[in-house]
Each structure stands twice: as C-alpha cells, then as structure tokens.
C-alpha cells in the first residue's frame, strides 16, 4: 500500500515538473512571437512618419526630387508587399534611401535650422532605433528560447512535444548593416 502511494507521489511530482517545463517553453515561444510582431509595429511607425518627413523637407531640398520619389515608392512597396521576402527587400531599400537623405540634409543649413525639422529629427532617430532594438529584442528572445531547448532537462520535453529552434533575424542587405560614412568637416 505505502509503496503504491510513494510511486503515485513520485509520478505526480514528475508530471508537475514536466508541465512546468512545458509551460515555460510555451511562454518563451510566445515571447519570440510577440517580439517578431513588434518589428512590424515599428516598421509601420516608420511608414507613418515618412509623409510628414517628405512634407517638411520638400520645400528645402529642390534638387533631391528623385531621392524623395524613391522614398515614397519604397514606402508604398513595403506597405503593399505580400510575401516576407518582398517586404524585407522593400524595407531595406527604404532604409538605404533614408540613409542617403540623412547624408544629403547636411547640404541644406536652412533645413537643419528649421524647428519642425529639429523635432522630426528626434522622431526619425527614435524610429530607426525602435526598429533596430525590436530586431535585437527578437534575437534575444530567440536566443533564450533556443537555449532552453538545448539545455537539460527542458530539451527532453522540447523533443517530446516537437519544439523547434527559432531562426535569428539577419539583415540580408549588407548595406543596411553598415553605418553610412559621413564626414561633417
């Protein structure tokens, strides 16, 4: 009798242990998903900011018509993109064009003194940072999740329920990784 009770208690404890590991795996995977959706939220934020930027800059930068048109074009491409690949491509083109704009603005001292633009500058920096931090956060969450999957004893539970390692976010366009080289002398 006592032997049966002891065995039952051990089984119950083991089950509880497995359930807690399973739950923490689910929790970590949800965080990965949540972090992934954050990237989209931040990209959308950038899309919303662009018309405002173009509006402010347009009057000053008469010679950069083509660049502005490109920015508008990439923005709508990114917004309409169907597949993840297309979207990533349009977003990286957009980042590149915005980087170019950032460089060109240095040639327009009047614009740089404009109050609206100064405020916008902070918003743009904030937006670019949000995008890069949301990617970073996603990679961090993937790291934690993958760690958990690889480590004992959670690797057993992960194997039992078919948890797979998530992929890290990598920037495809090497240009976007690079910090634009600008000299302001």
């Amino acid at each position, binding site marked *: 009798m006592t032997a049966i009770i002891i065995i039952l208690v051990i089984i119950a404890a083991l089950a509880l242990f497995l359930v807690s590991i399973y739950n923490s795996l689910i929790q*970590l995977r949800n*965080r990965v998903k*949540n*972090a992934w959706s*954050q990237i989209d939220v*931040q990209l959308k934020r950038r899309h919303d900011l662009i018309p405002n930027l173009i509006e402010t800059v347009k009057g000053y930068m008469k010679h950069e018509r083509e660049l502005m048109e490109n920015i508008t074009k990439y923005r709508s491409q990114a917004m309409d993109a169907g597949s993840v690949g297309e979207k990533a491509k349009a977003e990286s083109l957009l980042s590149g064009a915005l980087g170019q704009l*950032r460089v060109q603005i*240095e040639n327009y001292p009047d614009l740089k003194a404009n109050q609206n633009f100064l*405020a916008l*500058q*902070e*918003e*743009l*920096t*904030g937006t*670019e*940072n*949000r995008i890069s*931090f*949301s990617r*970073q*956060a996603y990679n*961090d*969450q993937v*790291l*934690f999740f993958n*760690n958990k999957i690889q*480590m004992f004893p959670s690797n057993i539970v992960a194997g039992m329920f078919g948890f797979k390692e998530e992929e890290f976010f990598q920037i495809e366009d090497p240009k976007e990784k690079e*910090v*634009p080289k*600008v000299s*302001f002398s």
Partner: protein
Amino acid sequence: MWELIESNRHKSILLFIALGAVLFFSGYIFGRFYDYEYGGPIGVLIGLTLWLILSAISYFAGTKILLSMSGAKEVTKAVHPQLFNVVEEMKIAANLQHMPKIYIIDDPAPNAFAAGIKTENAVIAVTAGLLGKLNRDELQGVVAHEMAHIVNRDVLLMTFAGVTLGAITIVSEVFLRSVIYGGNSRYKSKSSEKGGQLQLIIMVAALVFAILAPIMARLLYLAVSRKREYLADASAVRLTRYPEGLASALEKISDSTYDLEKANSITAPMYIVNPLKKKGMKLSNLTSTHPPISERINILRAMQNGVHYPSYQSAFQFIRNSREKILPPTASLDRVPLVMKKPPIGWYAQQDDKKTKRTSGDLIMQLNDFSFIDCSCGIKIKIPPEYKHTNIICPKCSTKHELPAISKS
C-alpha cells in the same frame, strides 16, 4: 534577461529568509525578555504585524509616496520627446509589455530612479539636471539601467527587503528605549519565582541582539543593493549594446557638484548613483547602497569581449582583480558574445565626440597610474595600479604578456 529573473527569485527568497529570520528571532527574544514564559510568541506576533502593516503600505502606496517624496511630476511626451523615445526604445529592447510612466524631478543634480513593484505600473523618473547634461546615447544608458532595475525586479526585491529591515530597526529601537527608559516591572516580579541562569542569558542576548540585529540586517541589505547595481549596469549594456553610453553618463553624473535635495535612505537604492554620498569618493566600505562610481565606469570601459553578461563579469574581475562572481549564476548561460555597437552616427551629426571621450578615458586611466600594453591582436590592455601579478593574459587572444616592473615607478 528573463533567465535572470528566475535566479533572482531564488536570490530574493534567500534574502527574505535571512531578514525574516532576524525579525522573527528579534520578536521572540525581546518578548521573552519581558515575559520569560509566554512573551516569545507575543513578540513574534508584534514583529509580524508591524511587518504586514509596512508591507501593505509600501505595496499599495509605496510608489506614490516615493514619487511625492522625491518631488517627481508625471510629464507628457510634449515636454521631452527625446526622453520618451529613449524610454520606449529601451522598453522595446527589454521586450517589456507595458510602457513605464515617465516622471521628471525638478532638480539640477543629475540622477534617475525606477519605481513600481509590478512591471505593469513601473515608473522611470529622471532629474532635469540629468536631461540637461547628457546627450542621447548617455541618456539611453541611464534609462537602460533603470529599465534593468524594473525588468530584473529589483524594485520588488529592494522594497520588501527595505520593509523587513525597517521592521527590524523599529522593533529593536522600541525595545532598547523601553529597557533604558521604562522599568521592566514584570521581569522583576517573575524573576523571584523563575530566576534561572537561562533567563539571565536570554536577557543579555536580547540586549546584544537589539543592538546588533539592525546593523547586521542593514549590511546584508546594502550588500544585496550593491550587487543589484552591478547587475543593472550589466543588463543596461546588454540592452543598449553600447557600454560607453552608460560609462560617460556616469562620468558626467559624478562630475556634478550638485546634491539631490529630496532624497533619503529609503529611496536611495533605486537611484542610478547614490544621491546621499558626496560624489567622486572612493567608497570601498560596506555602508553604501552603490558601488563606487569610478569602479563602475572602469568596468564598463574594460568590456572588450562583446556586451553579454560574461563579458561584464570578466571586466569586473579584471578591474577588481578578484575571482568574485558578481552576476547571478544564470548569467553564464548568455553564451553568445554580442557585438558592441559602433558609436552611432544617426540623424544627430553633432555627436562626434565619442572618440575624444575614449581618449580622455585612457588619459584618466593614465593619470590614475594605469599601465597599457598593446597586444598583437590589436587590443589595448589596460592594467589598474592594484594589479599585482607579473604577467597578464590578453582577454581576446589569450597571449601571455610579461609585465615590466618599471610601469609602477
């Protein structure tokens, strides 16, 4: 980040058991002092009631009290867009679900603190002096440090540790005063019947304990507080991927000659630098809530193998020249050496003073008797004057360098 919270729970449980045991024993022994036979449980009950009342107050109104004591005011984004952006960036980097509320303290002393027991109603407060003094990257470092206090649940830990410490202090104080100023008539009437040696021992022990308990509890509390500061620095660097931001912010803060007006010992552990101590002092003693600021800066600047936790750990050991593990054990799970960010060239072109900062950092080290060795792998090893060994191993390529003895002269 999330891995660390787990180990924090274990750590906080240990701290609570230790502090709780002190409180429990204080109540018990003080109770027996007054009534040898039945006093113990009553004393324990009094101690626990006090603890419950204090806990309830700080749980339900703690943040409000803290904010009003520090003179902080909630602000909207229009007041300081950059601060809002930086806080939100760090919220995203920490993968936090809720945006903390933002408060500004109208004080010229540069400082900042975090509050809020739950992450849902967290608060980050910064002084006006801080906003005036720091550039965007430095502000980001400070905000990341505060965000780390929130995510690592330090606010919760230090609040309840503080409450328990408070209860111990009050109980001991009241007991000592009552012994000194009020006669203990009950003891006298009982002593004739029960007067054994054991009773005398308990009485002496109670008096000794009343003096020592608050001191011991405080030292324990402070040791934990300092550890949490190191961890918050390490987490901040992991969030921003840019140690120089926080390092140069700390440097600017320590250069300030202002003192924060509305700070006290209860709020002190939550600030980025200790608001109560004269700045710039080398405090290697046990009575500070924060590690010495110069040491924190040196550790951040010594991070050369990426910005993950083990890198902070080895920088700490290098600067302190010790084997001490400052971060929770789970920090070693952070195995990928994350790449340090380059000094950002963003929409702010004017922030190009990073390189001069680093050279001035080297210069300061030089003035502080640091010696430098250029390793063949390209990094510059900075050796503090306290370093006693005759050789040093390059943290990057593991080449062994002999130290010339003349560098000390």
